[in-house]
């Protein structure tokens, strides 16, 4: 061997050291600091999904999501946490009867929780008075104004019929599932509201996982463990019966009709759906749907504008990773990562697998660019759930958050590589590259738990992005961003009339110092969760947005020049941008107009 080659060997044998503290500053990026203030801010609910002692069935391993939404229109984000509780055979099972010969049911020993924000990010449990404390085997949640009355309602996905909770405007909820047609009886996880057919009301896509019926599939459930890396664990999803997804069309009066078949959702075989996000992948003005399917090709439902869908997944390159592997696809992040105006995707996956980043190349093409970001072995060995592209450091470039935790408690047997409890990870975008800054991004990321769903938004009114992360058998994490959001614009879009008051599907592009920041209003995403509907623009030190273009769901456009940052603002369609709150930079309204 040539001496020069031999000289390379020490490099080969040494793993790259983790980024040292201060390395971020060397790159010129502001540090990200997330601190878990859940307990201090009153979020203390202990949530369960299955038997914490022994998770026998996959149903007990998936976990739950959460929602950050404004329940009462007071301008701050309230918090809804999904709970599942445990399952078991019927309590009246005759003595001596085989418990596995009958269908198990939720024990209803868990209760979804609703917390009210006081405006400063301190929470009060208002579950009992709100009517939102349903007892179901809950999985996920999304929020939207399905009935056009100007407040946000909740849709909770479950094992068993999903629930629609109608808001009376004050934050009191009534279960109106019966009669609205959206009580999907399958095991549902991800869901998203959006206007599929351009008629202004919000339709609903529901991702369904698998048919879990203990009495029907005794081979899968009866005292059998499946080998996970030679460690016995719960079986599935492979070998079990996948469910078809559902698409419900809003009839315009607040009721829905199951249009799955006619909309084309059943054109391909059922897959094990988990993550769901509705976004416009090709900028043709309608909203498409991307579905992360567990162990099966992901679906990219291309909308023809009339609510008829064609799965473009395989042809687009976003169905499987570059190697052709169908991944676990628990959560989906969606955002314009590279500032080209197109929405890119990131999909969280199993341990011993990458979280895959798909670059939207336009024309319905996506490229797996995962390996261009140095995620490293910690990401590869982690098992990802909730995720989103968000701008933690306010520089305008989207960063990536991934909630982690293993599916199987038995993973601990495989230490040091694997563990049930894992750290959430943050990847900061610096010069176009996502770098793992977890070790330096605050004490909140040092906590280990088996995390699941995550929701994102400005919880404490300082215009930076905070995170709520659900944890199995533990209270959630409330990661408060210690940044000050000084320059950021937090923009709420509203439509004054019609059924889509919160402008779901609207798109806004801010031009700041030559950079373009594209954002879209979405109801659903991450893993089974719902994030702040307001659009967050970090200006990276610039005082103003040079130009802001807003495209409303009906295609109407408005443009604004010289828009001040450093405030929370509201834009009602056709009007001007009005400041809602500006503790650091009071501002009058900006002139603008429809076009």
């Amino acid at each position, binding site marked *: *061997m040539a001496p020069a*080659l*031999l000289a*390379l*060997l020490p*490099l*080969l*044998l040494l*793993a*790259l050291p983790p980024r040292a503290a201060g390395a971020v500053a060397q790159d010129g990026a502001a540090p990200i600091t997330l601190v878990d203030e859940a307990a201090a801010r009153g979020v203390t609910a202990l949530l369960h999904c299955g038997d914490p002692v022994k998770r026998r069935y996959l149903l007990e391993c998936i976990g739950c999501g959460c929602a950050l939404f404004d329940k009462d229109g007071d301008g701050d984000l309230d918090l809804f946490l999904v709970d599942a509780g445990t399952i078991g055979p019927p309590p009246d099972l005759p003595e001596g009867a085989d418990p596995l010969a009958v269908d198990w049911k939720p024990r209803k020993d868990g209760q979804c929780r609703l917390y009210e924000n006081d405006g400063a990010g301190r929470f009060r449990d208002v579950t009992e008075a709100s009517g939102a404390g349903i007892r179901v085997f809950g999985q996920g949640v999304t929020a939207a104004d399905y009935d056009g009355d100007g407040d946000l309602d909740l849709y909770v996905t479950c094992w068993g019929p999903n629930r629609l909770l109608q808001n009376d405007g004050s934050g009191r909820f009534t279960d109106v599932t019966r009669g609205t047609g959206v009580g999907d009886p399958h095991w549902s996880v991800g869901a998203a509201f959006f206007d599929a057919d351009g008629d202004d009301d919000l339709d609903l896509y529901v991702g369904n996982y698998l048919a879990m019926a203990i009495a029907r599939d005794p*081979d899968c459930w009866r005292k*059998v*463990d*499946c*080998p*996970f*890396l*030679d460690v*016995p*664990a719960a*079986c*599935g999803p*492979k*070998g079990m019966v996948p469910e078809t997804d559902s698409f419900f069309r809003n009839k315009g009066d607040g009721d829905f009709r199951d249009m799955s078949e006619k909309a084309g959702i059943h054109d391909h075989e059922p897959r*094990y759906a988990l993550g769901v996000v509705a976004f416009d992948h090709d900028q043709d003005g309608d909203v498409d749907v991307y579905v992360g399917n*567990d*162990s*099966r090709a992901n679906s990219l439902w291309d909308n023809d504008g009339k609510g008829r869908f064609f799965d473009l997944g*395989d*042809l687009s*390159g976003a169905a*499987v990773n*570059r*190697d*052709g*592997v*169908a*991944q*676990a*696809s*628990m959560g989906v992040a969606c955002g314009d990562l590279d500032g080209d105006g197109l929405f890119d995707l990131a999909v969280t*996956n*199993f*341990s*011993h*697998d*990458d979280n895959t980043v798909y670059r939207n190349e336009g024309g319905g*093409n996506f*490229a797996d660019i995962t*390996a*261009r970001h140095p*995620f*490293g*072995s910690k990401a*590869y*060995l982690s098992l990802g759930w909730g995720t989103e592209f968000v701008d933690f450091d306010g520089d305008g470039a989207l960063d990536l958050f991934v909630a982690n935790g293993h599916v*199987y408690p038995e993973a601990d047997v*495989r230490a*040091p*590589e694997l563990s049930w409890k894992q750290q959430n990870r943050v990847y900061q975008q610096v010069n176009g590259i996502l770098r793992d800054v977890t070790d330096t991004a605050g004490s909140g990321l040092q906590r280990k738990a088996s995390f699941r769903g995550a929701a994102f938004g400005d919880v404490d009114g300082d215009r930076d992005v905070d995170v709520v992360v659900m944890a199995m058998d533990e209270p959630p994490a409330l990661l408060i961003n210690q940044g000050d959001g000084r320059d950021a614009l937090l923009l709420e879009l509203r439509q004054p009339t019609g059924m889509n008051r919160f402008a779901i599907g609207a798109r806004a592009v801010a031009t700041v110092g030559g950079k373009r920041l594209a954002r879209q209003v979405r109801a659903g995403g991450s893993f089974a969760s719902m994030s702040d509907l307001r659009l967050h623009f970090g200006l990276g030190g610039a005082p103003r947005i040079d130009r802001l273009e807003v495209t409303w769901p009906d295609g109407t456009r408005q443009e604004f020049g010289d828009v001040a940052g450093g405030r929370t603002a509201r834009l009602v369609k056709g009007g001007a941008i009005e400041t809602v709150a500006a503790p650091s930079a009071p501002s009058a309204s900006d002139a603008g107009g429809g076009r």
Partner: protein
Amino acid sequence: MIAGAVRRNVGAALALAASFAFAASAASAGQEEPPVAVDNAALFARWQAAQKLHAAGKLDEARAEMAAILAADPRNLELALAMTRWLAEVRDDFATALPFARRAAELGAAKADAINLVGSVLTMGGAAAESERVFAAGAEKFPADFLLWFGLGVARGQQKKYLEAKVAFAEALRLAPENGLVLFSAGENFTNLRDYEAAERAFLLAVKLKGHDDASWRLGQVLALQGKHEAAEKVLTPALTQGGKAARFQAALQLGMLWVERDRAAEALPLLTQATEERPTSREAWRWLARAQRALGRPEVATRSMKRYAELRADEDRIEEEHLLSLIRAQLQGGAASGGSGGGSGSGSGGGE
């Protein structure tokens, strides 16, 4: 890809182990003990007969007779080793060799080459956890034997213990820094750990040292993954005509993928078409061909290619599910669950092609 990497690692391990094991046999043959150390004449005759049965393709009879021979002298380590060696190295029959390797391990195979043989057969037989134990004990006993560290790395890698495998490969490379095969396997392990820079360096050295037939296309692949497109093209283009058929196929597929991603579908098309002709069961060749056809504005042929891809994918899913269900049924019938290391549970983290 992960499963493929494991298979390549195991194959590489045995190829290396076999070369050294043969050398050891040849050396010992000229010394005081015969290559087949069976001192009982009757057993030796039976052993020769069993070998003939196996060579004649009468595998069940051969296996039964070999088992009977071992049962007749269950404490005979040399006999167990000889049978393991012959079945693995001469007959390439690891399934039959597996119980004899296990017996040899139980009897305490003590020499380094014997440990290597037993461990390699266990790895090839899918008993990676047992193999890891054998190699770990061997490496502790013979810490200067790079083959044992190498085998330990392969066994750990097969179980997806990539961090621990890295330690073993590092030690093997410290002892044998110019071994191209070990470098190649270390590169595979770095790839599994998503340390593409280290993998690139390892594969580059493996190519220069002719460490493995797959080294060139794997180098091209990790370059492409990192966005080093020109360097990838420089590596993959000559690889189209180098190495064995399988390696050339992979080079064509990787270069075709790269060109599709680089908006050079017209150049990718003949490569990917040829790939589907050479290996019509390669779903990835069909998928990337479909993408090239679509990029060239040929949606109808793209749809046909994608249909073929979907059929192949469904077949693979069905086979995998049947395997899982067979494991479940075996458990329900009281059999031991032995799912290998692939992960019957667990979501879509399996290997590609």
